[in-house]
């Protein structure tokens, strides 16, 4: 088991390393003029050369690469060409915002989707099942970006129930700002008993979380249902019933344990999709997280920022996959195969 974890860990580091290298060279290969962007279109030639030197762009490519790698290990992700601020600092603020969003939506998707999937499987071919299946398949067909817009129209504009964009009401931000403990806004507001901010944050959370969680909800429901149906057909479940174990126990204690591996995989998948979804969702809802940060960076070809986010994403995905792999490997049958 230990050997397995180590192998996956090393493999993960390898992946991150590959991503870092590939993005570095791609950024240098693509025709663009970072120095020009840095100083602006109206700069003189001397200013541009000065910028070139400052950014280290006049050095040979390999030297730039090693400089870059050593910078990374010191936590220096470069400076954003757009905002002239260190990328690492900007990410430190943006990442917790996105984390809270992703976490909430995965939690919602899991809770609702799991229950829906289980009820669907245990009532196979009833109206409930058909209805739930239709809802699930429809929900995974909805384009996330469109859903965000439609929710805005419906809940913000027409019904005036929820705010259109932003993370927190400006008034609250000025009068009762959230004290930064962990960086996670809702969490910090809760532990500092800042109820005004908490309420405002909650209202702003609803639509983005809804947008991000809907797809995953459908996915979770579908995968849970199909896996559970498979398990329920197995001989060992029939055997449990033959010994007189009540149906409720058969499903929730016995069958669900067999489904646990699938659930973990779906959670990792959901988190992965949600993270990608933040790209669009945060832009539409004006949420100050990694998604909108990189969206702005992509539009203006701000390569240090793009690369910073790419590295963050690859680390995030590698971690997700690693956690999922480890939990799935806890299945006693897998242990036999790995010999760990």
């Amino acid at each position, binding site marked *: 088991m230990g050997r397995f974890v180590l192998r996956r860990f090393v493999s993960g580091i390898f992946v991150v390393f590959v991503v870092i290298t590939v993005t570095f060279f791609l950024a240098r290969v693509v025709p663009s003029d970072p120095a020009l962007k840095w100083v602006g279109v109206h700069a003189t030639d001397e200013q541009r050369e000065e910028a070139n030197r400052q950014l280290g762009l006049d050095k040979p490519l390999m030297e730039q690469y090693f400089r870059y790698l050593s910078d990374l290990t010191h936590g220096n992700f470069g400076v954003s060409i757009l905002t002239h601020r260190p990328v690492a600092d900007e990410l430190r603020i943006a990442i917790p915002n996105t984390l809270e969003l992703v976490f909430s939506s995965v939690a919602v998707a899991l809770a609702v989707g799991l229950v829906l999937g289980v009820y669907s499987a245990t009532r196979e071919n009833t109206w409930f099942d058909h209805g739930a299946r239709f809802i699930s398949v429809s929900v995974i067909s909805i384009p996330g970006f469109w859903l965000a817009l439609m929710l805005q129209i419906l809940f913000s504009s027409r019904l005036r129930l929820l705010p259109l964009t932003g993370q927190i009401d400006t008034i609250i931000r000025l009068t009762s700002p959230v004290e930064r403990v962990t960086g996670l806004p809702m969490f910090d507001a809760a532990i500092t008993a800042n109820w005004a901010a908490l309420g405002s944050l909650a209202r702003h959370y609803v639509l983005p979380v809804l947008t991000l969680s809907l797809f995953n909800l459908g996915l979770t429901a579908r995968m849970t249902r199909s896996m559970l149906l498979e398990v329920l057909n197995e001989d060992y479940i029939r*055997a449990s*019933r*033959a*010994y*007189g*174990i009540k149906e409720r126990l058969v499903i929730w*204690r016995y069958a669900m*344990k067999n489904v646990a591996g699938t659930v973990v995989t779906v959670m990792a998948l959901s988190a992965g999709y949600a993270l990608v979804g933040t790209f669009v969702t945060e832009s539409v809802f004006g949420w100050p997280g990694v998604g909108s940060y990189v969206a702005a960076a992509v539009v203006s070809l701000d390569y240090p920022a793009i690369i910073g986010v790419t590295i963050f994403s690859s680390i995030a995905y590698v971690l997700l996959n690693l956690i999922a792999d480890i939990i799935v490997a806890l299945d*006693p049958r897998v242990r036999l195969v790995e010999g760990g």
Partner: protein
Amino acid sequence: MSSEVVLSIADLQVRARTVMGIANLLNVARLDVHSGETVGIVGESGAGKSILAQTIMRLLPGNVFVTRGTITLNGRDLLKIPAGEMASRVRGKQLTMIFQDPMASLNPVFTVRELIEGVIRVHNPRLSNKAVFDRAIEMMKMVRLSDPEMTINKYPHELSGGMRQRILIAMALCSGARFLISDEATRNLDVTIQAGVLRVLEDLRNELDLSGIFISNNVALAATISRRLGILYAGELVEIGMADEIIRDARHSYTRYFLASLPSPSKKGRPLPIASGRNPDPLHKPKGCLFAQRCDHCTDECRAETPPLHEVSPTHFVACYRGGDMA
């Protein structure tokens, strides 16, 4: 063994809804099991043996349903009681079953301990943890598992086939059921292991005075453990009698072919007889005797109506118009 009837199946008809139409799976006129007796049910694959077991346990798949008949266990018709009661009062407590594939019948993500204790706790919710554990070990000893304290913490895939099957038997019996259905319980085991498991079943039957049904496609095997044998063909019970009666003096054409086709040293050098034709299609079962097409002695009467049970001896019945006296 007393002559009191514990399980009585009467006029049972089971069908299945398939994409291609309605299939006739079972049509059992009468089957009785007496206290302390093991009745062997023998037949080819697809004859309906497993469906019979599942019907008695009321564990049929969703598209299979009972159209007619009664199954009476200890005086109550199992087909009429509500499903919840079947689960909590009947299964495990009065009626239980062991399955064919021990690997597939043990939940792979639980240890033996969790599995056995789980069943014990369901039927004895007030027992202390220690009492439950002790009972689990006791059951494992009863099925002759060596070193139960070590085995109990293992996972099913870490055990051999014979050990798994014994654990299944332990789980089946630990709640006090006295009627045991074995559905091809030794089929997937090596011959030597088979013998061991059979011995355990026989001993348990004698110790606990179990009654039961032993299902198999191996008539010799069934004959060693059963007092009486019933032959199932295409869902119908075509012959039933004492085990040695059937082996010595089978009266139904099908039973004869069945027995004759078993290889044995005395038949060396000669081709084994095979009945011509095929099993009837469950979707389109013909009227009359189901074996008529393939029987050398059939008459028009056979093809017209399903033959009733004809008495050969007080313990031997055959579903044939000719009374099976075509020697």
